[in-house]
């Protein structure tokens, strides 16, 4: 796997921006073209690039017949190639499936959160193990009032309805993400980005609120990739697992769901903390959207197109 900064390549095509080359097959907006590749190691002592351990790769198109209607080239890992004298392209678009499932999940997550709080307030204490009640040792007494006025009734109805919407939407999203290789292409971090230096760099960029410019802004950075993957493949599955582990009907069929967690009350406690992690994600997510430009980011998630030089939140 190579990370490289591409310079002028041929008279027609210019590549810029850091780019990870996985397949030597680049794509026009419509249709594929093959590429020949030349790897030219950087000369020793060539300043910044060499220090960063980068190699230079020169690409030459073997066939650059432009399919009718195409405007620019981009490769499967998101790096942009565009014709000289053309404006930097709008490239990384949110697909229809991503946009629709994003907003359905946003609404159903609010439903889950509000109803989850209504349910929690009926007994705002957390325990570990199988059992727990007023009068037994608790793990945490949340500084919240006991609300015993039947708010958990609508809370439970809304919670399970929202859970179904979230689950079914999530299945569509995950299946589509696997089929279209959205996860592999856009979210799976490259090995080179998982180095300590690279992660620290990304964290420092975030802490200094440094926005990536140009083409760098056209793909997700390593922190975004890791965060989104954790939310989709760790936190949501954990919520579903711990939720099912609280069901006496489900655990009569699959007792391991609850025994592996250490008991029904442990499942409830983990459910609470995983929900807390998702709320933390939501807060940071919205904060980043605001920092990156609320209108453009929300617009991109509605209409699909992403303006260049804006961070993808």
């Amino acid at each position, binding site marked *: 796997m190579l990370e490289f900064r591409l310079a002028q390549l041929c008279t027609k095509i210019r590549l810029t921006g850091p780019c990870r080359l996985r397949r030597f097959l680049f794509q026009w907006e419509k249709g594929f073209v093959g590429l020949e590749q030349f790897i030219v190691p950087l000369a020793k002592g060539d300043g910044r690039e060499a220090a960063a351990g980068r190699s230079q790769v020169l690409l030459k198109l073997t066939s650059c017949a432009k399919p009718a209607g195409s405007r620019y080239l981009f490769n499967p890992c998101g790096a942009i190639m565009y014709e000289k004298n053309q404006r930097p392209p709008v490239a990384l678009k949110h697909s229809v499936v991503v946009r629709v499932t994003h907003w359905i999940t946003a609404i159903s997550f609010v439903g889950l959160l509000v109803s989850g709080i209504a349910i929690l307030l009926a*007994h705002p204490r957390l325990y570990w193990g199988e059992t727990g009640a007023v*009068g037994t040792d608790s793990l945490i007494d949340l500084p919240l009032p006991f609300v015993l006025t039947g708010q958990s009734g609508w809370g439970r109805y809304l919670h*399970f309805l929202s859970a179904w919407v979230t689950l079914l939407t999530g299945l569509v999203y995950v299946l589509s993400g696997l089929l279209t290789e959205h996860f592999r292409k856009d979210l799976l971090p490259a090995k080179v980005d998982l180095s300590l230096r690279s992660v620290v760099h990304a964290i420092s960029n975030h802490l200094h609120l440094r926005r990536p410019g140009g083409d760098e802004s056209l793909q997700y950075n390593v922190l975004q990739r890791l965060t989104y993957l954790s939310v989709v493949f760790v936190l949501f599955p954990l919520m579903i697992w711990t939720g099912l582990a609280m069901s006496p009907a*489900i655990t009569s069929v699959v007792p391991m769901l609850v025994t592996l967690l250490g008991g029904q009350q442990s499942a409830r406690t983990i459910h609470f903390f995983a929900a807390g992690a998702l709320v933390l994600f939501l807060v940071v997510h919205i904060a980043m959207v605001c920092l990156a430009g609320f209108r453009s980011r929300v617009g991109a998630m509605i209409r699909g197109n992403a303006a260049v030089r804006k961070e993808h939140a």
Partner: protein
Amino acid sequence: MSDQLTRRKLITSGLAVAAGVSGLAVARRFADRYALIPPDYGGIFGVGETLTYASQRLLMSYHSLAREFDRGQISKVIPVNGPPPDNDAYQRLRAGDFRDWRLGVDGLVARPSSFSLADLKRFPSRTQITHQACEEGWSFIAEWTGVPLSYILNFVGVSSQAKYVVFFPFDQSWDSLDMPDAWHPQTLLAYGMNGEDLPVPHGAPVRLRVARQLGYKSVKYLARITVTDALKNIGKGWGSYSPEVGYSWYAGI
């Protein structure tokens, strides 16, 4: 990548819509046939209830048993929600140590009967140590002794048209079970708790125990049981008192 409507997309979406519509129609017939629609299926929340109930009924076999525990795991603290019924009928029976108490069983049965506490204790019994969670969030483990409801249902001869068993207690909290939970081996008419007679706060003389659902389905202070093929004429027709006060009929969660 392109949002344009292509022929392939048109054909795909057309097929998807057709499959969706026929799928829904088939699902509806299937759900009716296999009793996968809960009595509180109405309204927007009913969609979630129906999905939960139907998927759990398809997933569970009649004999998937709730977890059972060791004596050592029995909880020392077992909270109680709500006082016993304060009506005269119950208080009189309680004063007489429930010697005059009778459990009537009627409806779609071959031999409508009524049982005294002594009758129930003479029948084969089952003792189980199970976990019970309250919908509020707390939970406990206790040992329950009683006669399996399935024994009583066989005793009175349940009609093949039966779809629900309805439980009327001495207070207003009536409830009902579908046949899978009514016939379930862990569903008891319990008269004993932790090795002693069932205490009044826990539902004396006899309470229902439904091991695969939340605590509120285990009706206390039983007075009468009716076997029926429809719930629409009982209460508001939503299957139990719970939906009338905002809680779902099915509580296997």
